[in-house]
């Protein structure tokens, strides 16, 4: 049965790590604006082609 004690302790430690991550995320303001990041992720980073344009001109 003592193996259970060990397992529970480990699982709780892992869970605590995630809780800590959550607390950090809240404190660093990641929940302040939930709309713009959701949109931002969908933008494509198009490589700039100004050079070509200038050559054309």
């Amino acid at each position: 049965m003592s193996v259970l004690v060990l397992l529970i302790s480990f699982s709780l430690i892992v869970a605590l790590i995630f809780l800590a991550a959550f607390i950090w995320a809240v404190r660093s303001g990641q929940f302040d604006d939930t709309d713009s990041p959701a949109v931002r992720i969908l933008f494509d980073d198009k490589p700039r082609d100004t050079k070509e344009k200038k050559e054309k001109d």
Partner: protein
Amino acid sequence: MERNKGQSKEKIICYHCGDECRDEHVIFEEKDFCCMGCKTVYEILDENDLCTYYDLDKNPGISLKSKDFGDKYTFLDNEDVAKLVLDYRDEEKAVVNFYIPSIHCSSCIWLLENLYQMMQGVSHSRVNFTKKEMHLVFDPGVISLRNLVEMLSTLGYEPLISLDDHEREQKGKINRSIYLKIGIAGFAFGNIMLLSFPEYFGFEGISDITLQHFISWLNVLLSLPVVFYCANDYYISAMAGFRQKYINIDVPISLGIIALFTRSLYEIFVTGSPGYLDSLAGLVFFLLVGKWFQNFTYQGLSFDRDYKSYFPLAIHRFDKDKWVSVPVKDLNKDDLILVRNMEIIPADSLLDSSLANIDYSFVTGESEPQIRKSGDFIYAGGRQMGGGIQLRVQKSVSQSYLMQLWNNDAFAKEEDLGFTNLVNVISKYFTLGVLAFAIGGLIFWSDTDFGLALNVFTAVLIVACPCALALSTPFTLGSAMRVLGKKHFYLKNVNVLEKMLYVTHIVFDKTGTITQNEESRIDFRGDTLSSSDLSVVKALVVNSTHPLSRKIAAGIELNVGEKVVEEYEEIAGKGLKARIAGEEVRLGSRIFVLGESDIGLESDTSARIHLAKEGKYLGYFAVRNNYRVGLKPMIEALGSKYKLTVLTGDNETEKRNLMRMFPEGASFLFHQSPQDKLEYIQSLQKSGEHVLMVGDGLNDAGALKQSDIGITVTDDITNFTPASDGIMDAKSLNNLPGFLDFAQTTRRIIIAAFVISFLYNGVGLGFALAALLTPLFAAILMPLSSISVVVFATVVTNFMARYKNLI
């Protein structure tokens, strides 16, 4: 570039802003634009290779019609003013946060965050969409703050810079603790439940006693932050209630939490049984979620603006030998200031220039611009229309007449005092009832076994903990508030919804609230004008920026064609004259059009624009107040349930029209100053009425604040609105009876949810009094009651909204 004036009538949509292209249709690179402004933005974006803007959303741009900022932003060159706007600045780096009301779609985010590609010196920009704010980092050595703001304005993203701005920073601190509390409570709830699983499945006699102890200890450890951190708001609120000598809903909640915790500690450490910690953590978790749901706010809107956010940040003052821009708060008596076209007069002053044409509609409710002559006293808050004027300041900004309104007690009063919501009314009796049951149980059982009696006592407190009761209100009201939000009626908080139940008297402002400012109708009275005459008039008025000219221009739906306009002259305060197609046309005041001889006839105060051609008088244009569409049915629907009043700063010319629209018994008060309006509301309240005020301008600010519910109506949600309890899109005004009716519906839903939670409490109470309450039973009953009440409240509220055609 081509310019097409006489386009056929089919609808052409502007590539940039999506508006219909009408008079000034521009075609560029095979794309249609409604005005030069939109085309310019497209050109700028195209040049900088930022046309992805148009791929993300269809016609994402902001219409630039009637948005001419001229050199409005020169004041940003002033170091002192810039300091107020900037958050941080050193030699190479400056940081600024702008509030940009026109942010509305994903294209906006994309463009504003790619600013660095087109503006030299901008190193970083980030948009907060919810709050419509942009965070910018730039190099002040490369690009000045003024250039930055002007560039943003050119693109249509004009930042709102006002006196209130630098103060907003401190206020805007977000309270993140609710997220932390929910997270920690949820974490504890999940883990304790997991660790309690062996109990649930009846492995009570776990052979290994050390394992059982270990789990119990862990549970206690996990519950500590829940009891001492997550739930602390409830103790604070309960204590605050006690101090004010009334029992709120947080009293039984706190009692329940304490009973749960002490009973569990006793069981774990003394009797060695598992305790109720899972129920405890679950209870706090659900309560916090309810709180979060209820505290939902519209972050992009501001419900507590005062005159400071309406006023400009800086104004031109004559110092020694030149005009410099200074912050308005530095203005002193006898300063000479310059107010340009469309700028707002910041302080009470005397007019130095010969003539001024001031639009007070937002401030006093008078619908037409007022003419002022040299030496006249001019109140702050008006907007100068036309050329620049010079003024001699008489009072500092905060001492000015309009600002005095904010010194009234109405603005100092604490929010929501004296208002007890439904749940707190019940909680008083509820708490007393629970205590009676608990003590009764204690006495009844103490004859047989005192230990058992104590058990029953705590068990009653535990099951009676009004979790479900406390959740029914936030979830019903929170859902209802979201439903109204979908209908463009944005409430400050859920309490407003409850207050709507008690309204007995509805007060309307006239100008801008039940009438439309922008689209007042123009009628011509006199000889019937031929279409060629009309097109002559239009050719004349399109040259003028005067608001009345614009109204006339908008009222004539003819194409001007190619008319030659010669000798055009606009005389401020008088009118327009020009030679069109060889004929002299005059349009304006009676004196101006008919000549000096006719002064005796000048008696009418309402706006009339007279027209004469070649010296022959043709008639006049009269501006009529244009009431909002669908106003009459709305008034009728309200009139059957509420008393109605119209308060207006305007004159009585519209009285007959109003009488026709409003039911008998409605009151009309004209020439009301902002202070009069406030006092009228006060007098209504003294006679026991609960007042809902619907207004729009600064002149209503006092009345809105004083009334039980103040609702601001606005054509554009992003515009300035005075402090209020709710902001309503003007298009939704007709739904007001429906909204008030829906508030009554939510009350019924809340009562139904109360009944459900009482049933759960009754069942639990039966078990508790019979001394049969087990941890497993509590662990099932409590989440079950909470979840079923939450589901009932949200589902029924949304169903009723659909049933009543609100969504």
